[in-house]
């Protein structure tokens, strides 16, 4: 899995959002890398995080749990974690698990 970070334009009502682009398999082997990336952004004041998922080939329950954890942390801080452009395999999993009702999906 690869994670790349982009800083998005600042808005009038808050700090700049950040986007994490994830590629490849997103599973139990990758969650530490993802958790560190998300926590680093949150600790530096970014509570609006977009997770770009268009290039994710596979996501397992451990990875979904990390997305949920990140979403909860962002919302506790007054922000949100948005799932952007999920690939078909990710979208199917989100629909089957009804997690699409819990996340903001862009």
């Amino acid at each position, binding site marked *: 899995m690869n994670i790349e970070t982009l800083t998005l334009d600042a808005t009038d009502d808050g700090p700049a959002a950040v986007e994490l682009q994830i590629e490849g398999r997103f599973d139990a082997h990758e969650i530490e890398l993802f958790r560190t990336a998300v926590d680093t952004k949150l600790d530096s004041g970014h509570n609006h995080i977009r997770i770009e998922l268009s290039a994710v080939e596979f996501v397992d*329950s*451990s990875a979904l749990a990390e997305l949920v954890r990140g979403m909860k942390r962002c919302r506790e801080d007054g922000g949100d974690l948005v799932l952007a452009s999920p690939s078909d395999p990710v979208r199917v999993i989100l629909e*089957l698990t*009804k997690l699409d*009702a819990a996340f903001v999906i862009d």
Partner: protein
Amino acid sequence: MTDVRNAEALVAARTIDSLTSALVDANDQLVALYELSKSTTGSLDEADAIEQILEHAAPLVDASSMTFEIDGVTVCTLGDPDVGKNATSVDVTTPLEMVATLRVSRDEPMGTAQSKLLTAIANTALQAAHTSRLHESAVENLIVERDHDTASALAQLALPSWRPELPGLSLFARSDPARSAGGDFFAWSVRDGRLLAAVGDVSGKGLPAALVMSSVISSATAAFQTVGDRGPGAVLAAIDASLHAYLTDASMFVTLAVIDVDASTGTLRLVSAGHSPILWRSDDRVEHLTAVCPPVGVLELSSMGLGYLAEHVLDGKPGDRLVIASDGLTEQESPAGVQFGDDGLIDVVANDKRSAFDTGTSIFDTIDHFADGVEQMDDRTLFVLDWTAP
């Protein structure tokens, strides 16, 4: 000429003396190294082992005192370091980045050959320390491994060891964790001729998931007793209310299907919190029973405004079949990296008309054959409930 010859003889004699002295020194070194090699200790205690080595080595370098430090911490001191007139020290390291210093005091200055011997002594002592620490680490790992195995076995004991028997229903249930313990589970209760059951999957794997799994089973068992008469939605809501905060703290969630089957009428009521796949076969048709809400631990159900959790209500009759599996079954990969998939499971469910036990066992065998040696990547759980002639 005579003076010249005398001078040459003198030079030759001195050369011979020098060579003889060098040979004696070399021989002394060999003897000392031989003696040092005999100092190899049988003790695995670090301080004991080093003390034995230094006691053996001190006479070889005529040391009044010897002090051995590892990473700046004194491990052993022999004699009084203030007694000798001449002090010297040598630093040695291991590939594991342990740094040791051997300090020696003696009456005479240290020669070059003895300095090399000192290095050999320091290396021998450091090697003994290294061996001792490796042994200590291995013992600690064994203790942790044993505790892990015990905890895993205890967690798996949370799964029910009995099978409910109700007229007109036949059940197969099996859970194979990917490691010594896992987060997949089932639990059930029989009340007034009704089967209440929960089948689920805690996110993650291994002992952490198994520990949460045992809590979910406890919560489900309590909910069966307290609100089971109000149906599967009430059971799910009760489990969510009792576990949401705990799951949030644990950064985990649980996909969960809860069923309520009235054995006298065959009616199935089912509600799913993010669990998939759930298949219903009736009249040779197989359909997915979809989830009504996200997994437990994601959003508090009471905060979602759902009010009433929509249930699947199905009138079961002999020949009908309910299959609840975990994603570890359908996501198992072949050597070519292809997943078994929901379609593979649907195919078996649609066409295998044997008993719940035979079909369930066959599905596990089919997955094993499909994996063809590829590591089991996730916990595998299968729950097959058949409606049979009473």
